[in-house]
């Protein structure tokens, strides 16, 4: 299955880095979508199919944690795989997010290979 992937981070450069890792990792990606904060991410989610979310936490306007809570409030979105990619790795926060369904967590700094492995673990290799 070719995925539609949403990358959420207030840094355009960080989004570009994540996108490049995906491109080089060999995952089947049909379309890349981007958002600079939680509010923009919600607009993207409501406007079309998304199969995987990679999101930062500390962003202006609406942070990643609030965005993930919003996803969890909607039954039809609870199965959407979410991987947090963030410099913020407070253990209490990680535990809370995992309890509401976040499937992966990659702490910055990370090598491209670490992110690839985590995405592989969460969604598996596409055929």
């Amino acid at each position, binding site marked *: 299955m070719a995925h539609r992937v949403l990358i959420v981070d207030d*840094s355009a450069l960080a989004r570009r880095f994540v996108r490049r890792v995906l491109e080089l990792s060999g995952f089947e990606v049909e379309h890349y979508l981007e958002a600079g904060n939680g509010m923009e991410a919600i607009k993207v989610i409501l406007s079309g199919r998304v199969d995987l979310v990679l999101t930062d936490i500390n962003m202006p306007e609406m942070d990643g944690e609030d965005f993930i809570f919003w996803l969890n409030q909607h039954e039809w979105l609870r199965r959407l795989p979410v991987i947090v990619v963030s*410099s913020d790795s*407070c253990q209490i926060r990680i535990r809370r997010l995992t309890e509401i369904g976040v499937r992966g967590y990659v702490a*910055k700094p990370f090598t491209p290979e670490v992110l690839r492995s985590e995405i592989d673990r969460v969604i598996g290799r596409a055929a």
Partner: protein
Amino acid sequence: MNHTDTSSLIASCAESALATMFFTAIVGPSQEIPAEHPSAGPGGCIRARVRFVMEPGGFLELAAEPQTLRGIASAFAAEETDAVSADQVEQTACELANVICGSVLRSAPEKSRFKLLPPVLVPEDSGALPSADVHSARLATEYGWVQISFAWNA
């Protein structure tokens, strides 16, 4: 945590961030330096600051010359140096400060519940760092020096 431990921790976290995610090598030993306004060449200096909320909170600030950050940005973005925009140079300062701050807080023995706020650029002439207890380290990267300052709120 004593002064030397903090400066060593900052240097170690910064070196790890630069090497793993920003593809930038350290070419000389890091220096623990007095807490002072970063000195820069004629091209000036870019400063990015990350505040964090914790008991107590504090901040981390990164300073470097623009051409140093341009080199780091080119490696991070896998672009030629002259293709990197001024905006990307500033974003690199912010993202690098953000990543190092998270790494330091994760490693510090006093860690507990914390939250990072989005990084901001600080005007170069904004003066001394707003804390009396600042720990700083200066790293020699392959593109030039990078100075990291870290402080807990009083």
